[in-house]
């Protein structure tokens, strides 16, 4: 809250330094504010891995790591890495992989697509079986996405397209479904 107030005080050049300083000081705050949202979203990402069941074909073998791939701009930053660090889901070590350009590799089980990415639908359709696609914004599901993270009522919520999930061969726990803002079949 403090940060909002301080943003309005940027009028004078003299006090610009002060403003800059203030800005600098608020950066961590901003970062912190910004970080909470993506921190939560990162947590959600992690959670999804815990509530989802991939088909065995999705993994090379039982010991293969589970990759969370970030396609496009990475909004999470270190937060996701810290969160994922050391997590093991169903025997698969969780790792984070960043891909700047499509197509994503075949080894991703979770794919977070930058909502600003072009030709979303094509990317999604081109994906193999066993990939859980997550992105942000309402339109994602129309594009064939599975889980769309949204902000609803100042809270991070998500919508799920169950059919798409099932088509990909992934099973989602009812727990997740019950918590979703909306579930589309």
């Amino acid at each position: 809250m403090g940060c909002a107030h301080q943003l309005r005080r940027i009028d004078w050049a003299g006090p610009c330094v002060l403003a800059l300083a203030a800005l600098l000081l608020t950066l961590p705050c901003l970062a912190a504010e910004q970080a909470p949202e993506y921190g939560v979203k990162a947590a959600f990402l992690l959670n999804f891995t815990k509530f989802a069941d991939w088909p065995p074909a999705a993994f090379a073998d039982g010991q293969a790591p589970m990759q969370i791939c970030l396609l496009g701009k990475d909004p999470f930053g270190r937060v996701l890495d810290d969160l994922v660090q050391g997590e093991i889901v169903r025997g698969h070590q969780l790792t984070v992989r960043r891909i700047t350009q499509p197509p994503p590799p075949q080894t991703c089980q979770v794919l977070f697509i930058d909502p600003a990415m072009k030709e979303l639908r094509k990317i999604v359709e081109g994906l193999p079986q066993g990939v859980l696609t997550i992105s942000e914004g309402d339109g994602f599901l129309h594009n064939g996405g599975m889980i769309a993270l949204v902000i609803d009522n100042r809270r991070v919520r998500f919508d799920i397209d169950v059919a798409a999930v099932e088509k990909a061969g992934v099973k989602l726990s009812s727990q997740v479904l019950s918590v979703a803002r909306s579930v589309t079949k």
Partner: protein
Amino acid sequence: MRRFRDRPIKQKLVIITLATTGVALVLAGVGNVLVDSLLFRGYLRRDLTVLARVIADNSLGALSFNDPNAAAQTLSALKERSHITGACIYRKTSPEKAELFAQYAPTSEFSCPAAQPGAEVTGRGMTLIEPIVLNGRSIGTLALQSDLGELYERLRIYSSTILGVFLASLLLASLLLNRLRAVITTPIARLVRATTHVSHTGDYSIRAEKLSGDEMGLLVDRFNDMLAGIQSAFREIDKQRARFHFMAESMPQKIFTARPDGEIDYFNPQWMEFTGLSFDQIKDWGWTQFVHPDDIDENMRVWKQALEAGEPFHFEQRFRNAAGKYRWHLSRALPMRDATGNVTMWIGSNTDIHEQKEREEALRRANEDLQQFAYSASHDLQEPIRNVTIYSEIVASRYHSVLDAEGQQFLGFLKEGGHRLSTLVRDLLAYTRASMAELNDQPVEASEVFRNSVTALSEPIREAGAVVTADELPKVYIGDVHLQQVFQNLIGNAVKYRSDAPPRIHIAVQPIGRMWRFSVQDNGIGIDPEYKEKIFGIFKRLSHDNKYSGTGIGLAICQRVVERYGGRIWVESEPGTGSTFYFTLPNNAQTARSAAIQSSGG
């Protein structure tokens, strides 16, 4: 509150049975209820645990995705379960901290504590803490609280069932008891009735019925045996009593029995016939009215003495019969003792000795007269005899020259005859005097009499050079004069009939029964056994020569005296060695007196 011990057996049986049954049932019931409640508690816990797990699982999503509403919704499903009083989900914010995430509070009484409660069960009912685990890691906690209403309900149902069963069992048990109790109580009651009947009526002929073969049956058998024994004992007693009565009634004597204190409790019919009165009139001490006034005092004294000492009673008294005449009776009584030696009763008899007594009396008087006559006769005879003797002596000496040889011889005969007559009369006098002299009841010291006798014989003793000794002599019941006569005669004889050796004479005494046996032992010429008894005859002498003076009446006198007092006299002797004269005298007044009474007839 009567002691349990004193209650009737029926009651005891009932109490015991119901108490044991009751206790068993109570224990079983309580045990059951306890066990069941424990088990049910466990079941409830498991149930709750399952529920908690389910809820926890169902809350995973809400908790992970931080959706309290979803969690609350999940929790609200708990309202289906009426026994759940509340639920709280805590979200782990840090390894140590967890904050309240969602709650279910159906009533105002319940509210979730802000911080996760400890692991223990708190508050009423049952609280379960279940960790909410996602992927092996705890992301929160679920606290689920349930009241124990189900438990209590179950307990209630269970208890009432148990109670119902309990009462029903008791009822059944008592019914059964009622039926079966009789098996035990009836034989007992029968026996009790039988014994009561016997003790009330004294009828020993009845027998108890044996109803069972157990210990009661044995008791009945023994009881019947006992009754039979008592019955036969009583029959025996009756028989003995009948025998006694028959004996007592058929005897000519009067029979009586008395209690230890002297009161007469039985007179046989002879008594009633004699007195002409009924038993009631003469029982206890009523018989005293029939005793002669002269005899009654001594009678009572002797009777009381016998009673006190427990010694046989013996008395002669006069009883007045129905016609008012007194008759002499000999009364005797003996005490009967029990096993410990105490006198239980006296049995006595009174024999009519009147005729006998009169005869005795007459005889005694006759004898007394005779003796009196003999005494005075012999006394009077003395004088003329003396005259004869002396004057024949005078004539012989003074007119010696006038007489011729024959005349002198005749005169000699006169003299001798006179002498003999004189001695005879003197001895007769002594003999009769021995019979007549007064008896005294006082005992006399024999040693004193002995000394007197020795003194009286001092001349002959000295002349013979005799040594006369004696043991310590006791008191004897005999007149001192008489005893002196005996001693003097015996010692005198011992000195007189001596052998060539200086006479040694010794008097000894030995108690034999109720008599003293004296012995006078000498070392004289002895006596031929053939004449052992003859020597005691009056005027009997064994040697007719004049070597030994005396008429031979001495021993007769001794015999007369000794027998007068109830004793005996005899001799043991060996010719050439010596003789021992024995005589017995009583050591008590009674024997002496009764002997005297008897012997005055002879």
